[in-house]
């Protein structure tokens, strides 16, 4: 009896790619994905169900498909993508619906994996240099995205306590850089001059795209309970990050930084949300040894992730994006999955 996995956020960057990775695992019998939009990557055997914003259909799907693992990749951690209230609703209400479905009586769910972010630690002056999973944050959250993530993690820990028969794995990912992902930081590092804050050169930490996918796979396969920080080894100065990408820095004023960054957002140059400005001032470091002790092996350090990103963006700027854009067509996908004309072995 293989695993039956439900992936939320199938159309997001991570949901689609994780589903692709899980498809290659033979021990996973069935994968169903949920999202408001269609998947953006090609999938072989993942079923797609379109859901509404709040995932209220999730309970019915869980009951009907009897999934034993839910992989929640739908948490929004990039506050530049949507308004604060919509992000809060997506994160909080979506998670509450998910937990209600998973915790219902007679529910078949035995494992929940959540992709969270190290934003829950914040980047404040009083922070320690390294955050372990149990280190408390010294100052209260100031930005919306941090508050919504902390609320979601609160619900998860309550759920874990109330439902001891369900394994809850919470992964906190640091900022990600890779060949494909686009984040405010990756956009900032691709500008001709990279913004920084005058007088500050904080140490930052990155995870590589592939390590993110592999770590999610690893946790699904090994059913690891608890909280894990996921980040590459080492922290490097922001100036060195820009140097690896072959860019020079341009300074924002240390006082009134948000006001100075606002024109950049209005002109569409780059969006620097407040949590990113804090990161450029104080940096953040998380201790990644717990996942390593559980057996996971990283393939990239922080510096390695930055270099990989720099090489990929150099290639892309030279030859362009080589892969054709994928468009999901539901009739074609249904044909491949359900038509009696297709030979299955």
């Amino acid at each position, binding site marked *: 009896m293989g695993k039956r996995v439900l992936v939320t956020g199938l159309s997001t960057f991570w949901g689609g790619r994780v589903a692709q990775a899980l498809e290659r695992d033979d021990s996973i019998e069935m994968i169903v994905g949920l999202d408001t939009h269609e998947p953006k990557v090609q999938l072989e055997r993942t079923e797609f169900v379109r859901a509404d914003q709040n995932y209220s259909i999730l309970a019915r799907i869980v009951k009907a498909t009897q999934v034993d693992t839910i992989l929640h990749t739908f948490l929004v951690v990039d506050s530049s993508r949507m308004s604060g209230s919509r992000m809060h609703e997506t994160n909080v209400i979506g998670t509450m619906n998910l937990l209600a479905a998973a915790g219902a009586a007679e529910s078949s769910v035995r494992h929940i994996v959540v992709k969270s972010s190290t934003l829950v630690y914040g980047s404040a002056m009083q922070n*320690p240099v390294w955050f372990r999973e149990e280190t408390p944050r010294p100052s209260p959250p100031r930005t919306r995205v941090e508050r919504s993530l902390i609320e979601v993690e609160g619900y998860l820990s309550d759920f874990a306590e109330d439902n001891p028969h369900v394994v809850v794995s919470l992964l906190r990912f640091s900022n990600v850089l890779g060949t494909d992902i686009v984040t405010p930081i990756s956009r900032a590092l691709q500008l001709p001059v990279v913004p920084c804050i*005058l*007088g500050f050169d904080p*140490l930052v930490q990155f995870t590589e795209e592939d390590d993110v996918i592999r770590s999610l796979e690893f946790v699904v396969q090994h059913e690891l309970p608890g909280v894990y920080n996921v980040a590459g*080894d*080492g922290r490097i100065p922001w100036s060195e990050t820009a140097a690896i990408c072959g860019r020079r820095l341009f300074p924002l004023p240390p006082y009134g930084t948000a006001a100075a960054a606002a024109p950049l957002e209005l002109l569409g140059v780059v969006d620097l949300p407040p949590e990113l400005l804090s990161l450029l001032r104080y940096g953040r470091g998380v201790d990644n040894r717990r996942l390593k002790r559980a057996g996971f092996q990283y393939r*990239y*350090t922080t510096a390695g992730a930055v270099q990989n990103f720099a090489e990929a963006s150099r290639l892309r700027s030279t030859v362009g994006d080589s892969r054709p854009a994928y468009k999901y067509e539901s009739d074609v996908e249904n044909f491949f999955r359900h038509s009696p004309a297709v030979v299955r072995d």
Partner: protein
Amino acid sequence: MASGNRTTEAAQAGTLVHLPRPAPEPEPLPDPRRSDVDEWGRSEKMRQLARQLYAPLYDNWFRVEWEGLEKIPKEGGALLVANHAAAIPSDAPVIMHGIEEELGRPVYGLADHLFKGMPVIGTMWARAGGVAAHPENAYRLLREQQNLVLVFPEGGKGPGKTYGQRYQLRRFGRGGFVEIAMRAGVPVIPIAVVGAEESMPIVFKVPYVDKMLGLPYVPITANMLLFGPLLGLVAYLPAKFKLRVLDPVHFDVPPDQERYSKSKVMDEAEAIRVDLQEALYEMLRARRSIWFG
């Protein structure tokens, strides 16, 4: 038969015992670094440059003399504590320079978080080995990495002393430094510093303005009276520096405990303060001149 036995015995005597091969260490991942800034923000290259620039001040202006440097271990962690003085403290760079030059070991200095929030100065401070004084940071530096860490238990109260209060050690807080050393399983090594008080003595502290600006104190120093307000902030008086390293204090408690007895911590902290105070008095009795020792 007999020859058969002998050959079997010979074979047994000559056989090598096959030890199981240990699992191979995973290959270290490529780490394409371009600078030598470590995880705490310290850069050895910048420290070397700082030491080169500081050497004239150390050798010729302050004419620093050490006593008991051999008590600082060449390997293993230790928490160095010292008395703190001078409106803009001169003792921290002197101690760090001295130990790094003489022992060749890096020293990390724990200081208030507010350094991190200062533009330019904060970054320079971090590159020179400054680390914010958070217990997690101290634990990792001392216990896991076995580094030398310098901390001033008097905190801001030390440099805030006016000239009339010089060399009277302020209270060592709640003894937090002792708890840090206990939890990390490292000894505390007190260092008595004579000379810093006179290098930038505070003649008068301006009231009310310090609270308004959020500073610990706003000093009028003798340097400012002699050299003017701006130059007086950077020009130190050429006091002779003498530093004495006292015996390391080991605590007979196990490391990594959740909590340590508060009364024991405060007793140990007070004992260290008393030892440091006694050493200071002894050194001051032997000192014939502020400027020449």
